[in-house]
């Protein structure tokens, strides 16, 4: 009996020892996890973008307006403007979203809905924050993991899965914590750029009122509690 307990103890120690020994190796570096994630992000970005290419407007008054605001935020926060690929899309939906590999999509509906540049800057800073905090990839990887899991267990893998995945991204449905993180970061960026975050708060408040003149409100429908967000942005 005593001998068996002793053997159990030794066996456990051996298992723990193996684990400790193995964890000495930097597997993250060995497997190049980060590099692989980056490469994957680039590929995914290209892939998503390939499906949206035609509707994008890359010049004109609206493009220049958004471009100058993004450039201003990037400059004062020390981000490389060149890395962000800005796309304006002719769509009446009030929406803006970040895609993998720093593709940023802004709908003309959103540009028409804002009252001034401060409001627009707020939304842009929010999307830049999503990119800077690598929320896009985090979310995508989780979603991919989830899809992978389902396809493994149900054995129903298919082309539909990846399509659904990309649809998820454009809906920008992040979870609450990530949204708040992005909001807080956005305020930081705005302050550094010398823009008052009140504009962003005003915009969110108006969206919260569900003003009929704004048209289709997909940005707000995926970003819950916009009034509450407006409140904490003002409070900062």
């Amino acid at each position, binding site marked *: 009996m005593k001998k068996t307990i002793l053997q159990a103890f030794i066996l456990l120690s051996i298992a723990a020892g193996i684990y400790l020994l193995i964890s000495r190796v930097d597997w993250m570096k060995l497997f190049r996890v980060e590099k692989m994630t980056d490469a994957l992000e680039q590929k995914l970005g290209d892939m998503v973008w390939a499906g949206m290419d035609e509707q994008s407007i890359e010049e004109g008054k609206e493009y220049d307006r958004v471009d100058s605001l993004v450039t201003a935020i990037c400059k004062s926060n020390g981000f490389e403007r060149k890395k962000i690929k800005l796309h304006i899309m002719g769509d009446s939906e009030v929406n803006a979203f970040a895609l993998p590999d720093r593709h940023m999509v802004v709908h003309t509906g959103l540009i028409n809905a804002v009252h001034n540049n401060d409001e627009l800057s707020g939304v842009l800073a929010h999307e830049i924050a999503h990119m800077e905090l690598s929320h896009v990839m985090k979310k995508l990887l989780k979603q991919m993991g989830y899809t992978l899991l389902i396809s493994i267990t*149900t*054995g129903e893998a298919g082309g539909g899965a990846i399509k659904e995945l990309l649809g998820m991204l454009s809906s920008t449905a992040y979870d609450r914590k990530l949204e708040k993180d992005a909001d807080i970061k956005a305020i930081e960026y705005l302050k550094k750029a010398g823009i008052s975050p009140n504009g962003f708060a005003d915009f969110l408040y108006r969206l919260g009122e569900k003003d009929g003149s704004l048209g289709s409100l997909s940005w707000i429908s995926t970003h819950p509690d916009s009034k509450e967000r407006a409140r904490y942005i003002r409070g900062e």
Partner: protein
Amino acid sequence: MGISRKNLYILIMLFCVSGYSWLVMHLDSRWVNVVGSVCVFKKVTGIPCPSCGATRSMIALISGDLINGVLWNPIGLLLLGGLVIFPFWLLHDLTLKKNSFHVFYASVEKTIRQKRIAWPLIVLVLLNWCWNIYKGV
């Protein structure tokens, strides 16, 4: 011949315990998403087995949705009925030291083996199976 009383009761107890834990697991819808179908037959052949959908049927029945319960798979009705009745029956037999369930089981086995009962049952199972495949459960 046939299964002994003790073995039968152990088997039924196992059935009840695993059945109830299986159902409790499935009440959490996240579990369904994570695990999905466990049916080996469906995984291998790609077509549902005769009892695929029974879990969903039972879940529907538990939540009071009789129609969906039957539509998913009528077998769910049978299984849930067994899960509800067997524990009481076993308890009755074990406390009163009787073997009424064993007798019942043996008589059911005997009845089913008769050709004029067996064939309609087989046809019924096959029809239900066809329906299952048609539904794409």
